[in-house]
């Protein structure tokens, strides 16, 4: 155990090129997916919070439930869509990083939308009448509420990033864990553990945790800085 740890640290210290490449791919895929998820999920969640329409309650329930979508199921659905005989097969995206981004985007969009909806709905309880009284159209009200809760949304984004970077089911199914191409931190850790290269698995695990901490710390610092300027 101690030896394994020592070796892990040694490999980390030497910035093993393989480890760096895997970490970079994981980071790229998950950050892109979170970006897509934010671009789609924040407007979706905000509009659901602001606009009254029939079936809204059902949609809210659906959004909340889909926060718990099992990654492996999402992976499977994306797999079926992208497989050679699937409707998107001709794109040839299966077992590429793009497929992993697609799967993780599907995974985090409802999460971001559901959290955004809740956060914006709370702000709407406080500001909604005022904004309606100003005769602002729904999309403008949604935009202003998103602006108002921008610091709280950072937490939703971080939750989405945490879910994306640490999931294994979706990236494994649609990415295939191809060495040097679609191997991510989580798929690599799983594989190396099975192969018995515990030192590498542990090194990767440490890097994964480090990445998550780093991204969270960066977001927290940025947020604190912004809050100080505009509480």
């Amino acid at each position, binding site marked *: 155990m101690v030896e394994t740890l020592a070796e892990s640290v040694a490999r980390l210290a030497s910035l093993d090129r393989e480890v760096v490449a895997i970490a970079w791919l994981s980071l790229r895929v998950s950050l892109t997916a979170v970006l897509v998820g934010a671009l789609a999920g924040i407007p979706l969640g905000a509009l659901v919070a602001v606009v009254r329409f029939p079936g809204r309650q059902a949609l809210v329930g659906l959004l909340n439930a889909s926060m718990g979508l099992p990654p492996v199921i999402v992976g499977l659905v994306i797999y079926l869509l992208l497989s050679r005989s699937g409707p998107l097969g001709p794109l040839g995206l299966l077992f590429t990083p793009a497929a992993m981004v697609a799967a993780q985007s599907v995974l985090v969009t409802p999460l971001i939308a559901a959290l955004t909806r809740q956060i914006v709905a709370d702000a709407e309880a*406080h*500001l909604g*009448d*005022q904004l*309606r*009284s*100003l*005769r*602002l159209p729904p999309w*403008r009200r949604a935009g*202003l509420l998103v*602006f*108002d809760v*921008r*610091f709280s949304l950072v937490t939703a984004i971080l939750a989405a990033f945490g879910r994306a970077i640490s999931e294994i089911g979706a990236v494994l199914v649609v990415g295939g864990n191809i060495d040097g191409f679609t191997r991510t931190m989580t798929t690599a850790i799983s594989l190396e553990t099975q192969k018995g290269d515990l030192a590498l698995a542990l090194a990767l695990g440490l890097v994964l945790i480090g990445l998550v901490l780093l991204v969270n710390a960066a977001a927290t610092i940025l947020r604190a800085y912004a809050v100080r*300027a*505009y*509480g």
Partner: protein
Amino acid sequence: MSAAIPPNPSLPPNPSLPPNPSLPLRLDGLVYRAGPKTIIDGLDATIAAPGITALIGPNGAGKSVTLRLIDGLLRPDAGTVRIGEGAPVRRAFLFQRPALLRASAARNVALALAPLGLERRERAARTRAALARVGLLDRADDPATRFSGGEQQRLALARALVGEPQLLLLDEPTASLDPAATERIEAVVAEIARGGTKVILVSHNLGQVARLADDVVVLARGRAVEHGPMAQVVFQPKTAQARAYLKGELPWTAYAAAS
């Protein structure tokens, strides 16, 4: 009761007072329910005269809900709100609790100009004028949510004024202001009304009602129990409910006595 309201002698006659498109403001048989509770219970009032109409009554009488019904934020379960002859009216609502965005004071005020489609420069000039009016021009760039309670209320008033509304709904605009600020805001409200804006003022400050109002509507349990010129309603109230409220009796004892 609400028929002819004589001009208020406290206001200098203003022959150039433009006709206000929000008049007459008619509330006919308004009913508003929340769950099993009837909050507005057949409210009738016709406000035909320009100037300032005070809406007074005990806590929970339904004053804030009435303003929301007038503004259209709430839909009555029965009855109608008719504003003028139906032409669009620029209105503004100062809420009892100011709701400000996490943005600078100036941005909060400028927000009310968004639907008017003005040029940037014009928006900025009007925003500054409105902030100056409530004594907050030097705070224009400060975050609004860091303002004190009274400052927030003044800022919300600036936002209500900036669009030059024709109908201005004020829900306790000076409730958390110090005496000097209260005096200043009262002057601003009087000036706005002299400029031709119809003002509906909810206030528990009877001195303020006496200073500002042309006519007064007394609300009790979701009904207009009295409506008349300020001096008459405030100094010679006809109904038991109005007398009780004006004398400062607790409403629940008053209701017990009245019923």
